[in-house]
């Protein structure tokens, strides 16, 4: 007989290394033609940090994503960004890149303020333009519209007294011998943990998540089949929603493998499962539909409110599956993985 059950599990995860300094640095070079070079030590291992850091630079500088090129993870040219681990790069390198971008921007903002006869605090950067800030967002949009209309009409944008193009601004800077370069580094605000009590401030911010999983358990064989997963993750702010979903979906898959099938078996120190025939990962047929829900509770210290999602994605999955199995058949497995033989043995003990 097959029985269904639903299980829930939550998690929290401190972003960055635990109670240890873990800074990251970045350089931003705003080039003559308005394109941008970001230098970061951050290693993109497929999770998409390069794209997220480019977005952060583009947003801060008011340029298009296509204007930004990221050179990453080359110790000959990029500053140390620490490890791509602890779900820290969006938060820590993200802040470093943003700070570097702000520093580079300050040079052109100063030139723009002078040209437009306003204070630097009144300048906003967007759509490759530096524009005088107006009272409300609505009127700011109007100014943006104005610049776009000028472009559409073939006029040089920025001739309006209220805005100036970034390229023109850079030219003004160069004419004065100024380079628009910035560097930034960020270290999360933490303290070490007391050796005896463990008290302290190990992380500057935490990610949170809850997953709900439905399973089907075959009561004659103990086989657990995961039917669907719902995963809600508080990422602070999703810099790139599709990549956040990708992290969640991939995390759930690893979590499912951890829950049900993956186990390095070691016999007298020798790995007995050293190939993909014996160490089995979930295939496309093993991963069920996953509903990713992005929750955004912005972190004050995060770049645009962002925290991290890489590791949180897999943390609750195994626990939720274990709870779902209990819900389905009343068997609580307390040692991972939840293999069919364990489930069946406990079911048969129950009688």
């Amino acid at each position: 007989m097959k029985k269904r059950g639903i299980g829930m599990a939550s998690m929290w995860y401190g972003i960055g290394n635990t109670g240890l300094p873990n800074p990251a640095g970045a350089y931003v070079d705003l080039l003559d033609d308005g394109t941008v070079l970001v230098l970061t030590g951050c290693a993109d291992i497929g999770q998409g940090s390069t794209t997220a850091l480019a977005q952060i630079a583009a947003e801060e500088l008011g340029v298009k994503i296509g204007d930004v090129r990221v050179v990453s993870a080359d110790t000959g040219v990029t500053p140390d960004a620490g490890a791509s681990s602890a779900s820290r790069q969006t938060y820590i390198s993200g802040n470093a890149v943003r700070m570097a971008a702000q520093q580079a921007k300050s040079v052109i903002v100063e030139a723009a303020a002078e040209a437009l006869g306003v204070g630097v605090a009144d300048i906003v950067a967007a759509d490759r333009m530096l524009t005088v800030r107006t009272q409300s967002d609505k009127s700011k949009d109007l100014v943006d519209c104005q610049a776009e209309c000028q472009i559409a009409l073939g006029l040089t944008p920025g001739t309006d007294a209220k805005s100036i193009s970034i390229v023109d601004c850079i030219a003004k800077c160069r004419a004065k011998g100024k380079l628009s370069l910035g560097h930034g580094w960020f270290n999360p605000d933490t303290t070490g943990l007391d050796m005896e009590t463990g008290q302290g401030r190990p992380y500057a911010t935490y990610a949170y998540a809850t997953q709900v999983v439905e399973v089907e358990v075959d009561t004659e064989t103990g086989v657990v089949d995961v039917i669907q997963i719902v995963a809600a993750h508080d990422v602070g702010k999703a810099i790139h929603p599709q990549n956040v979903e990708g992290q969640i979906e991939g995390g759930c898959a690893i979590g499912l493998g951890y829950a049900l099938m993956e186990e390095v078996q070691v016999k007298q120190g020798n790995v007995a499962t050293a190939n993909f025939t014996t160490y089995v990962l979930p295939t496309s047929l093993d991963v069920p539909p996953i509903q990713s829900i992005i929750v955004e509770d912005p972190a004050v210290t995060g770049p645009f409110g962002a925290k991290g999602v890489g590791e949180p994605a897999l943390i609750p999955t195994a626990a939720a599956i274990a709870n779902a199995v209990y819900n389905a058949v009343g068997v609580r497995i307390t040692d991972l993985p939840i293999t069919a033989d364990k489930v069946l043995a406990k079911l048969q003990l129950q009688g």
Partner: protein
Amino acid sequence: MSKRMIKFVLNGKPIELEVEPELLFVDLLRERLGLTGTKVGCGEGDCGACTVLVDGKNVNSCLMLAVKADGHDIVTVEGLGDYDKLHPLQEAFIAEGAVQCGFCTPGMLLSAKSLLDVNPHPKREEISRHISGNLCRCTGYTKIVNAIEKVACQGGGEDRE
């Protein structure tokens, strides 16, 4: 141990060369022909990163001797598209966020192509089944299946050219 002359069609172009009998097809591609888009993940047919198409069918090139290419039509990821004209599957993989580390991507694309070429409008379950020999550790497969499904909905393998 004597060398053999083999002839085959690779990405639409005829090829003729001499190979040692023990040479694996994946090594011929990667090392002799410089086509490094085909990856080696396990070397034992368990991951599908080395997938190529032989006469339209997806096979593991890590388990194939180069001599066995003789007389066949072979497609690797380099034969799918280029910078100027991406294959619809390549476009869909990008648009749907199906690429993370990218190591499984070439093999995954070729498995997808081998499905759509014979079954232009597969159901989601059929897609999952057909890529079940291609392991992906990053994506959880969801967006990969989405991308293949997108191409299937847009006309699949029928009117791509």
